[in-house]
């Protein structure tokens, strides 16, 4: 059964009389417990799609169905709690003057949920942080720990879907591995559905089952993980993105240069 169905979605920004169309007619569906990837360069509209799904952006047309319910212009709290976002920059997305506990309580207050203290402790444990971290401020945490808090904040409403907007781009390689492992574990344990936005093909291929490659507001290709790993993608832009994640490719190969495949092997 599909968790998210998007049909002819178009999203624009700006004044309704002179809209700038950022997403231009995309359709896809994401199954329950699947991870769907969106990849493309900056400004191609990948985060905008997440914004429309999360209810952050209201200037969209088309049909969105989440968990069997058609999404309209107005959503109930229950509908909004169904999908939660995790943002790129753990330094910018947590309130600097609020403790971790305060940050985690806020969604519960907005949604009028009780059993708050218990939920905060459970969710901190879920993301692998000590419970006493609730008394700390964001500046007392490392980048990886902060991203764990951001994931905890998204999980505290017990959503079915996590919308991940470049969750590891601001982190070091070693920390990125921890967060990617955590996301993989959480998906299995909590039976979550993910939509992951990234510009790194290796990260997307690691986490996702299917990936949509975006350029200028449309999907140029939707590929499976197997296609990426086997290298049987068809669109040239997808190939450019794949080469990009392997590193630099000199224009004129020099004698000492070995292809990325050889180096890795």
């Amino acid at each position, binding site marked *: 059964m599909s968790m998210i169905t998007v049909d002819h979605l178009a999203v624009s920004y700006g004044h309704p009389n002179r809209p700038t169309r950022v997403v231009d007619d995309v359709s896809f569906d994401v199954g329950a417990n699947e991870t769907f990837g969106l990849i493309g*360069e*900056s400004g191609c509209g990948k985060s905008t799609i997440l914004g429309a799904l999360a209810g952050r952006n209201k200037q969209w047309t088309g049909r969105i169905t989440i968990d069997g319910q058609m999404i309209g212009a107005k959503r109930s709290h229950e509908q909004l709690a169904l999908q939660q976002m995790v943002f790129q920059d753990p330094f910018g997305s947590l309130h600097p003057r609020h403790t971790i506990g305060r940050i985690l309580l806020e969604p519960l207050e907005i949604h009028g949920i009780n059993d708050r203290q218990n939920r905060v402790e459970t969710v901190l444990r879920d993301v692998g942080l000590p419970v006493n971290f609730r008394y700390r401020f964001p500046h007392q945490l490392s*980048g990886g720990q902060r991203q764990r808090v951001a994931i905890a904040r998204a999980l505290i409403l017990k959503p079915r879907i996590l919308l991940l907007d470049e969750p590891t781009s601001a982190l*070091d*390689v*070693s920390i*990125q*591995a*921890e967060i*990617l*492992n955590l996301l*993989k574990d959480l998906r299995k344990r909590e039976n979550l559905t993910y939509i992951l936005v990234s*510009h*790194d*093909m*290796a*990260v997307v*291929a*690691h986490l996702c089952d299917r990936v949509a490659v975006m350029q200028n507001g449309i999907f140029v290709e939707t590929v499976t*993980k197997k296609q*990426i*790993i086997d290298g049987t993608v068809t669109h040239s832009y997808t190939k*450019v*993105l*794949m*080469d*990009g*994640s*392997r*590193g*630099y*490719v*000199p*224009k004129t190969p020099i004698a*000492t*240069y*070995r292809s*990325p*495949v050889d*180096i*890795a*092997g």
Partner: protein
Amino acid sequence: MTFWTRAMPDPSPLPLDPILTVRNMSVGFPSLSGTIPAVRDVSFSVGREKIGIIGESGSGKSTTGRAIMRLQPPGAIVKADALRFEEIDLLKVSEKDMLSIRGRRMAMILQDPKYSLNPVMTVGEQIGETVMLHEKVSRRVARERTLGMLERVQIRDPRRVFDLYPHEVSGGMGQRIMISMMLIASPSLIIADEPTSALDVTVRQQVLSILDDLVTERDIGLIFISHDLNLVRSFCDRVIIMYAGRIVETIAAADLNHAKHPYTQGLLNALPSLDHPRDRLDVLARDPAWLEG
């Protein structure tokens, strides 16, 4: 089993004609509770090659680059047994002389052109300023040189771009402008601090190939500071791996997969790879012994 200590000879061949020699350089920041070391006893030399410095945030890679340029933050203490750039002793040279070295003989490319270009000066004026300052040429000559340089970094319409302000150009174009600004005075050493981290994959390839061509064509040295292992191993000739302010390993880029130090191995294994997909990524287990080597 501490075969990666400094006592061992450098496994990669040393450049015969070093442009820059750094011996036992340390950079520390004084604080109320004593000096906090950011860089500890690093030694390396750079010839006419592309050398990469890899490390996590806080490993001291940018501090090393800045200390070489003598651009360390005020208050920082730089100590070294030797810090030699061509015939100049960087430890002794005055700030006044440094002004004629920086930009002319060694230059630095920074991460994000959005923040490192002057927002209230046109692109052309900024690039031309370097030659006017260092070579005392007229505005007209500087303009000609700038237009030539812009063309060299593959900007299609140099005359139009010359009069643009930094906010009017894209990230990739901004970084090419930065490269042209740094290379116009023909320096012999370029320090590039994460020059492509703010760029898209597609643009990154183009900017790197321009940088690659210029470094090869002019036969100069490049220090390429980055956190991207795949990028450095495919772009550079040699790689320096830094951890907690120390160099843990120096290795030829092609041999990175056979790196000996557990930290380097850990970093490589933590990387998701298209060629070797794994269900779980290895998490780096930090050994306190790495701090002291």
